[in-house]
C-alpha cells in the first residue's frame, strides 16, 4: 500500500478539484481496451437474448419442476448489489460519518447501475418480453387490470420507486460539481454540464435547498431500500414452499443485500483508487472502515443463515427436511458449504485479524463474498423447486445453458461498462462534499 496523506480533506481546494477532475479528461488506449472488452461481452449477451426471444424459453435449462433459475438468481443478486450505494450512503449521510465523503458517489452509482441491470431480469425471465407492458395498469378494451396482490406487481412498484429515488439521490449532489465543470474546454461536455447543472450559481439559497433535499432524500431512500429487498424476499416467502415460507426472509435478504453490496463497493473503490490514481483520496482508513462493516455483515449473515436452517432442522417437517437434506448433505452440499467458507470463514480470517487486514485482502474477501452471495441465491432458488411436494416431478435437475450463462456474464460486463462510462463523464468523488463543512470545523 502506498503512503497517503492522513487527512486528504485538508488539501487546498484547488488541488482537490484538479485531482478529482483530471480523470475526466483524455482517453487512453487502456481505457478504450477496458471499455471495449465489456462491450463485446454485452453484445454476445444481447445475441443470446435474441436467440431466446426467437426460439423461446426452451433454450434455457428451465424445465419442470424448476421454472426459476439463473435469471431469478441474477435478479436477486443485482438487486442485492444495489444496496451498496444508496442505502450505505444514506446511513452514513444521516449519521454524518465524515469518512463517507469519498465513498458516497461511487456507491450511489453502483446502486443505479445494479438496479438497471437487475430490473432487466424479470423482463428477460418473462420469455415473451414484448408483453411486459401488461404489468402496467392502463385502460384497455376489456378493462382488465393487473392483479395488485401479486408480488410481481410489488416488485415492479418497489423497483420503479427505488430506481427513481436513487437516480435523483445520485443527481442532486452532482449539480454543484457539474456547475464547476461547465467551464470545461470540450464543447459537447460544456453543453452537457451546463444543461445538467440547471444554471447553478452557488448561492446560499441553492445550498440550503440542496442540503435539505439531500437529508430528506436520505431518509426516504433508506426506507425504500429496505423495503425493496424485503419485497424481493417476499417473492419467495409468500409461496408455501419448503424453506421459502419463512418470516425472517425479509431481514435475511436485506442483510445479505447489504453484505454483497459492501463487497461490491470494496472492489469498485479499490479499482478506482488504483486505475484513477486516487490513492491520496481513498486512503487505508476508508478501506479499513469498509472492511469492519463487511466483517460485521458477515457475522450477521451467518447468524441469519444459522437461524433459518436451525429452525427447519428442529421442526423436522418432511418436505422442509427434503430440501434441507439436498442443500446441506447431498446434491447442493458442495455449493452450500462453499458458500459458508467464502461468506464467513475467509472474511472472518482476512478481515478479523488486524495484521491480515489490508486493501488487497479486503478485495480478495470481497470477490469471495460476491461469489458466495451468488451461490446463496442459487441455493435458495433451485433446491426448493427441485424438491417439490410432488414426488413424480423431482426427476429433473436444473443446469443453466449457454444462453443463461452468456446473459449473466453480460450483466457483469454491463456493470463494468456503465461504471467506466460514468467515471469518464462525472467526478467519481463529490468535490464540494469532500472538504470539511463549517459545522464539522466547529465540532
Amino acid at each position, binding site marked *: 500500500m502506498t503512503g497517503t496523506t492522513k487527512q486528504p480533506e485538508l488539501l487546498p*481546494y484547488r488541488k482537490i478539484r484538479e485531482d478529482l477532475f483530471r480523470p475526466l479528461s483524455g482517453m487512453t488506449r487502456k481505457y478504450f481496451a477496458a471499455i471495449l472488452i465489456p462491450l463485446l461481452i454485452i453484445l454476445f449477451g444481447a445475441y443470446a437474448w435474441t436467440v431466446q426471444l426467437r426460439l423461446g424459453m426452451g433454450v434455457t435449462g428451465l424445465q419442470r419442476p424448476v421454472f426459476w433459475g439463473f435469471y431469478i438468481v441474477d435478479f436477486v443478486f443485482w438487486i442485492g448489489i444495489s444496496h451498496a450505494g444508496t442505502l450505505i450512503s444514506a446511513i452514513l449521510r444521516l449519521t454524518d460519518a465524515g469518512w463517507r465523503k469519498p465513498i458516497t458517489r461511487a456507491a450511489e452509482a453502483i446502486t443505479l447501475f445494479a438496479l438497471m441491470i437487475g430490473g432487466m431480469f424479470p423482463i428477460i425471465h418473462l420469455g415473451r418480453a414484448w408483453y411486459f407492458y401488461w404489468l402496467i395498469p392502463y385502460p384497455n378494451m376489456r378493462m382488465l387490470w393487473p392483479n395488485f*396482490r401479486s408480488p410481481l406487481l410489488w416488485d415492479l412498484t418497489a423497483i420503479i420507486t427505488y430506481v427513481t429515488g436513487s437516480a435523483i439521490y445520485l443527481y442532486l449532489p452532482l449539480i454543484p460539481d457539474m456547475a464547476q465543470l461547465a467551464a470545461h474546454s470540450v464543447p459537447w461536455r460544456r453543453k452537457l454540464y451546463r444543461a445538467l447543472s440547471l444554471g447553478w450559481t452557488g448561492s446560499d439559497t441553492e445550498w440550503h435547498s440542496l442540503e435539505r433535499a439531500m437529508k*430528506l432524500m436520505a431518509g426516504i431512500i433508506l426506507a425504500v431500500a429496505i423495503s425493496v429487498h424485503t419485497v424481493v424476499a417476499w417473492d419467495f416467502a409468500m409461496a408455501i414452499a419448503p424453506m421459502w415460507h419463512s418470516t425472517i426472509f425479509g431481514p435475511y435478504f436485506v442483510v445479505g443485500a447489504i453484505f454483497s453490496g459492501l463487497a461490491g463497493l470494496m472492489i469498485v473503490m479499490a479499482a478506482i483508487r488504483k486505475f484513477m490514481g486516487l490513492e491520496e483520496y481513498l486512503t487505508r482508513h476508508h478501506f479499513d472502515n469498509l472492511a469492519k462493516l463487511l466483517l460485521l455483515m458477515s457475522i450477521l449473515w451467518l447468524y441469519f443463515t444459522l437461524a433459518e436452517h436451525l429452525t427447519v432442522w428442529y421442526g423436522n417437517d418432511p418436505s422442509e427436511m427434503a430440501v434441507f437434506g439436498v442443500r446441506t448433505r447431498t446434491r447442493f452440499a458442495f455449493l452450500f458449504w462453499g458458500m459458508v467458507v467464502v461468506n464467513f470463514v475467509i472474511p472472518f480470517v482476512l478481515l478479523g485479524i488486524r495484521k491480515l487486514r489490508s486493501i488487497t485482502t479486503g478485495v480478495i474477501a470481497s470477490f469471495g463474498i460476491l461469489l458466495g452471495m451468488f451461490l446463496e441465491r442459487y441455493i435458495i432458488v433451485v433446491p426448493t423447486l427441485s424438491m417439490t411436494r410432488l414426488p413424480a416431478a423431482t426427476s429433473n435437475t436444473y443446469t443453466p445453458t449457454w444462453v443463461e450463462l452468456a446473459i449473466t456474464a453480460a450483466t457483469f460486463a454491463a456493470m463494468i461498462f456503465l461504471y467506466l462510462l460514468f467515471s469518464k463523464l462525472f467526478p467519481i468523488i463529490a468535490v464540494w462534499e469532500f472538504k470539511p463543512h463549517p459545522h464539522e470545523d466547529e465540532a
Partner: protein
Amino acid sequence: MASVTYLLSEFHDKHAVASAIESLRTAGVSTADLDVFSEEPVEFPRGVLDRPSHMSLASVLGAIIVGGGATAFVWWSQNNYAVITGGMPVFSFWGTGVITYEMTMLGAVFATFGYFLWESGLIRKRDKTAPVPIVPPECICLRVRTAGEDVSRPTALLRAAGATSVEKKAAL
C-alpha cells in the same frame, strides 16, 4: 421607480461574512436582499441568514397524495373487474399494502425533488436582472441589493466587516 444597484463583496472568512450580514441587517437591509455565493456550503449560526423552508411539508403532502391516489386506484380497479380470489377479499390492505407504501415513498421523492428545484430557484429564477458573481476558489461573495445610487453606507459596513473588495454593479 428607484434604480436597483448591487454590491458584490468578497470575503475570505465566513465569520467576516456573518458579521457583515448582521451589520447590514441592523442598518435595515432585508435578508431577501442578501445572497451569499460560494463553491461549497457555508453555514452561519441560527438567526444570521435563515432561509425558512416548507420542503418537509411538501414531501409529506406528496407522499399522502400519491400514496392515497394509488391506493384509491387499486381499490377502484380491483372492484371494476373483480377477479376470482377464492373467497379472499377483492381488495385488502394486506394484499396491496406494499403498493401503497412504495407509491407513498415515490410521492415523497417526487415532491422533495420538485420542491428543491422550485425553492432553490433552479427552475424559477427569481431575479434575472441580478448579477451573479464569479466566486474565486476559497472565497465567499456577499451580494447586497440596494435601492438607489447611494451605496456609501452599505459599502462602508462591508469593508468594516472585512470585505477584501466591494464592487458596485447595476441591474442587468
